């Protein structure tokens, strides 16, 4: 546990030493500033349903563009960087297990992802001082972000174990995420009820809208958590298997 925490702390801190992280933070804040402006604009129209204002934070195009593009960039360095620089040798010859390493790095990256989102709590606080806000859906929305972030980052972590090249890792992760994301979007194009329901299980966009409305469906929790666990499991296998090669 102690070793795991040491890895988490190092990974999380490492982001703040890289210029890339600040670019991501800046882009994220610009994007969310834009969204906040949209929310305020929405509230300005006299008969706007005020309760629907805040969910906009989680159900807009920017949100998806950001997650699909930026999560691979956050995750790309996790293993690829260490493999390239050779520090992976130090890490894997320390008395830590591959599982601890994978989970530690994943948790560090998730920590950074959540650090990005933390400032958006200010928007909630500002809006709350102006209009009545039901905290239930807000909490559910943030829960959705944690789940989705974890899921996407586990895919990114896995991609990063596959190569020494960070760019390749990011592109691989992006490809996998696009595949996962678009599978769910096919739902709207299929009329067969059976297939429609099956695809609905993967429709991340709809899931986020559910969360934003305050609906926490157990099926969603199971899906996100098991998918995350699956990709982390693949990462452990990949790290272990790559020890065979120099």
């Amino acid at each position, binding site marked *: 546990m*102690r*070793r795991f*925490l*040491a*890895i988490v702390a*190092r990974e999380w801190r*490492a982001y703040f*030493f*890289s210029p890339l992280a600040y670019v991501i933070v800046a882009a994220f804040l610009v994007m969310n500033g834009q969204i906040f402006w949209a929310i305020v604009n929405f509230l300005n129209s006299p008969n706007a349903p005020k309760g629907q204002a805040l969910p906009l934070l989680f159900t807009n195009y920017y949100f998806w563009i950001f997650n699909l593009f930026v999560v691979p960039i956050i995750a790309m360095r996790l293993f690829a960087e260490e493999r390239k*620089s*050779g*520090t992976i*040798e*130090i*890490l*894997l*010859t*320390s*008395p*830590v*297990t591959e599982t601890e390493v994978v989970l530690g790095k994943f948790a560090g990256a998730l920590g950074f992802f959540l650090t990005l989102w933390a400032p958006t709590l200010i928007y909630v606080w500002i809006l709350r001082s102006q209009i009545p806000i039901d905290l239930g859906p807000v909490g559910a929305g943030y829960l959705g972000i944690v789940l989705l972030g974890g899921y996407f980052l586990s895919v990114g972590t896995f991609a990063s174990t596959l190569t020494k090249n960070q760019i390749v890792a990011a592109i691989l992760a992006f490809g996998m995420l696009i595949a996962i994301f678009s599978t769910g979007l096919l739902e709207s194009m299929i009329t067969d009820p059976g297939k429609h329901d099956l695809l609905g299980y993967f429709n991340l966009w709809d899931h986020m809208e559910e969360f934003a409305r305050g609906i926490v469906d157990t099926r969603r929790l199971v899906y996100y958590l098991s998918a995350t666990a699956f990709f982390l499991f693949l990462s452990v296998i990949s790290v272990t298997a790559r*020890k*065979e*090669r*120099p």
Partner: protein
Amino acid sequence: MIEVQSLTKRFGTQAAVADVTFSVRQGEIVGFLGPNGAGKTTTMRVLTGFLPPSEGTARVAGHDIVSDSRRARASLGYLPESAALYPEMRVREYLAYRARLEGLAGQEVGSRVEEIVGLCLLEEVADRKVENLSRGYRQRAALAGSLVHQPPVLILDEPTVGLDPAQIIKIREMIRSLGRERAVLLSTHILPEVDAVCDRVLIIDRGRIVAEGTPEELRRRLTGTPIVRAAFKGEVAAQEALGSLQGVVSAQVSPADGETRIRIECAEGAEVAEDIFRLAVSKGWVLRELSRESLSLEDVFVRLTHHEEASPSAQATAGQPPVETPSGETSAVASAKAEP
């Protein structure tokens, strides 16, 4: 502390390390010597658990490297060839991180870090970022990282590579003092290093151990009979006089301008040089030169790893054709080899 038993590591069908057996005791510094690509790094990576062995077993501090890998890893400190560090970390942070990875906690981390900073003479740079350090400091920081948990076994892969001569001397001193209570296995392709630091040498070539012993033993074994050279002023009738000395197997006398040069083959273990001196004194000969001819470790190395034609590993030995130069001194070739 390190016991390796018929260890083999194959990559595909090619064996990088083939049936290697050796051991390193506590308080012993063993040099792992071989041309580049001979299998030194692979052996070390197997010992440190970074690569799994294909066949054979090894134990580190009594723990099997496969079945008890975690405990084996906990009892060793490893300095990889790359001496890789996290560039964005400060030296103290890095050492604290390594200490935590080793399972230390709380105040112990801080006190151990301070201790190791002192031991490795890193005080000046302890709060600097690794990326801003000179090569020598980086190497020392990397070494410090492998020592922070006070492991009983040290595995150092080319610890002095890329350092300047003053830094090399410092690192060697450190290794020697570390080796007093620990088992140290260090790899190198720099021959004087072995002479300077190691108690015992393993010469590895193409994945196999081709020789083992103290530096002196290896030299003696390969020189065969010891040779003494002498030179006297003027022409002297040395042949019979020398022939009567004990321990002399044969003597070659060759007069050269104003001198008599003699090359004497001696029996194993005979101290002929002193007798020659006494002989010269009693006969009133003027002795101009008296020296023992011995192979440098380098010659031993070249002989053992010299392959016919330009095989890849022979070329890799020094980046130049191996030359057999019997000499007692560390020659210029050796210092040229010190360059990475």
